[in-house]
């Protein structure tokens, strides 16, 4: 089973995830990005948006 898990197969799996998986995947993509960005600039005068730009790309 593991041998069959090529990137293409994985991609298909992800592409055909049902709604909830899309939901959680998106949440886990976006939220940590915002939180980590806020953590990086915490205590400084920089904005989290600066870091979001870098992480997003």
């Amino acid at each position, binding site marked *: 089973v593991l041998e069959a898990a090529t*990137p*293409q197969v*994985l*991609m298909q799996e*992800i*592409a*055909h995830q049902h*709604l909830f998986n*899309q*939901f959680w*995947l*998106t*949440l886990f*993509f*976006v*939220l940590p*990005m*915002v*939180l980590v*960005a*806020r*953590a*990086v*600039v*915490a*205590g400084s*005068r*920089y*904005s*989290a*948006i*600066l870091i*979001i*730009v870098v*992480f*997003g*790309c």
Partner: protein
Amino acid sequence: MGYLLVASGVSEPGLADFPMLGMVAQTTVIALAVSFFVGGQELRRIFGRRKVPVDDSVTYATDQVVFGTGRTQLVFITRAFFLLIGIEALVRVVLGTVPDTTLGRYYPVIAYMGLVIAVILIDNKAAIANKRRYLAKGVQEMGAITVVLILGALLAQWIRPLIALPQIFFVMLLAAGLGALLYRWRHGPAIRCLLFAGIPVVLAANFVVGGSRIGEAFTLTGMNAVLAYGFFGQVLWMFGGIALLILIGRTAAVRNLGPGMAGSLSHAGLTGACTAGDLGDTAAKRAPIMINIPFFGHVFVFSILAVSIERDGLVVWPSLLVAGAGGGDHDGRVARPGSGARRRRTRGEGADAVLVRLAAHRRLRRPAAAGRVRHGHRGRLHGHELGPVALRPLRRHPGRHGRRRRGGPDRVRVRHALPGAPAGVLHVRPRHGGRRRHAARAGLRPRRHRRGRRARGIAGRERLMRVAMIGAGGFARRHLDVLERLDDATIVGHQARRRDAAVAQARRYGGEGFDDVEAMLDRTRPDAVWITVPPGAHGALEAACIDRRVPFFVEKPLAADLETAERIAAALDRTGGLAAVGYHWRALDTLDELRARIASLEVRLVRGSWHGATPPPRWWQRRESGGGQIVEQATHVLDLARHLLGEAEVLAASAPLTARAAYPDSDVAPASAALLRFERGPIGSFTATCALGGAAEIELTLYAEGLHVVIDQGSVRYDDGRVRSEVRARIDPVEREDVGFLDAVRTGDAARVWCSYGDALGTHRLTTSIQAFADQAPR
């Protein structure tokens, strides 16, 4: 991340395998709709001179869940995500524009899940005055945002045969118009979370999708030039624009530059940073205004672009007219290089020019030459800070407010009014005949202002309070820093023994400076006065206020002796005057919980201490002028003990006066101790010393059955032998007591002060009796 997803083969450029990410990335209009609404509210408040009390219905839980993100903030970020997808899905389902993808089939479910979760996702640790109302507001706001988006899309569709204006154009008009109509609307959870986290969440999704195309972008012919232009153009306009703002607006304060740049460039990132509060509270408040103003300008840009598309070519003359208007001043004349105030007032483009115009329109301070501060008009500001801050010269406290509000204890919102305040009570004391006529003659208040106020009727909440300060020391500044931030107070006068000190203070905070208290009261006619003078200076100042029926807030102690305080209290009783006393420990928010619990505690012992250094002022080192350490300093912990445990009698006290080489002229005992018994039963020991190099123990400790409670100015700590807990102060108590006093003056409800003069007199009797006991004790 977008690039990594593609590079690792998980997805293709554009991330078609993650359609919900693309969905979140397309919700910019939702986040902006909220900014438009709040911008409309702010514009109405400024141009309509509408005063709205600061919203204190919610106090956020600030304990950090993730480093850099507080608990309520995390809830906001999560809720923003659900709200964005919920509203986006609902709008598309209603409009029938659901994309023909696998995810499209789930849009009704996404709408349901997103909205339901967004409704119930409320931070249970945030202090919410009325949770049911707060939840209802969230639902109403979600409904309104949805309706505005749908109407915006329908209007765009309807007008498309005539002109191809986009949905966001109509959303802007509708949301801003709604904001102007509902300018008193206190924000519920939907607006709060989208203002704070809407744009960061949208941008995070956008950048992931954009990042996935980075590799692809570089393979396109000519893309390098586009990217280089995008990058360097951005840099040019960011830094060039900021330089222009600094030059024209004569301000280096980020609270002005941030919203100005966000507005004039419609720069999404900066907009997000501003509305999320990253550039300070003031910038967050102003950002929506500055986003709205250029968007109003988009009326022309959108129209020209739409017509140009129709004609398949740029319509030149309208474009030139719009560009010309952008370079002209508000009178339609093109600004000429020249000199003088007019050039400073009117030069500029876009958002910064609007800032300047607002200031000029509202008769605010004109920009002085850099470093030279013109003064004397600040007292007439009608509560809005926009103008004078925008025009404040560079060398004058750059960024001061921003720094204070981010980190200091006063970061928590100002409590402007206690719940349940009766509305419509305007006058709280008899007025002098012809007071307003006198004020108009003296030029103290613009006639237009008086008419506007009268026209609004007796909306007590909107009334601007004229306040004056007697004293020019550290505590005067402490209160003035609070008062200048309040929207409903304007500082009109200062009195100090030395006129130059009063004038310097007036230059800093606005109003006029005097060395004579009666002249100050008669000339400035304040609604309320703060008295912050050394203990020995009390008596005549209070009498002057009482004679004129002016309510006053006096800093503790009431006087250096008991007789003066008794005399003032008797005069207040005789005249029914209103007075509050600055025993600010009572206003500590940490005590709210303890006050509720104290009746059920069986307190056996109380210990108070004020162990610190000798304050440098010479008046403090003489009892005749300072009262001594018990009367002047330890009075705080004694007052708190009285407040919690009732009256006390002195059983014993000692305060031996020993010679101190460093203070040869001092007659203040370097150490004192007293033994008390409180009416609720506990006995107490109180000690004070000024022999140390700095503050050591300054606290009150209660020893109750099964509970040890330590109270200081920063926290209240509980220990029952098994569990230790700590409640930390989040609200500036000085702000709380100032706002409470102003509220009492405005409404005539004396119960709104944190400490009345009569109550403080009880503490003063206690401290002076300890001093008297110690004076009689064998040395």
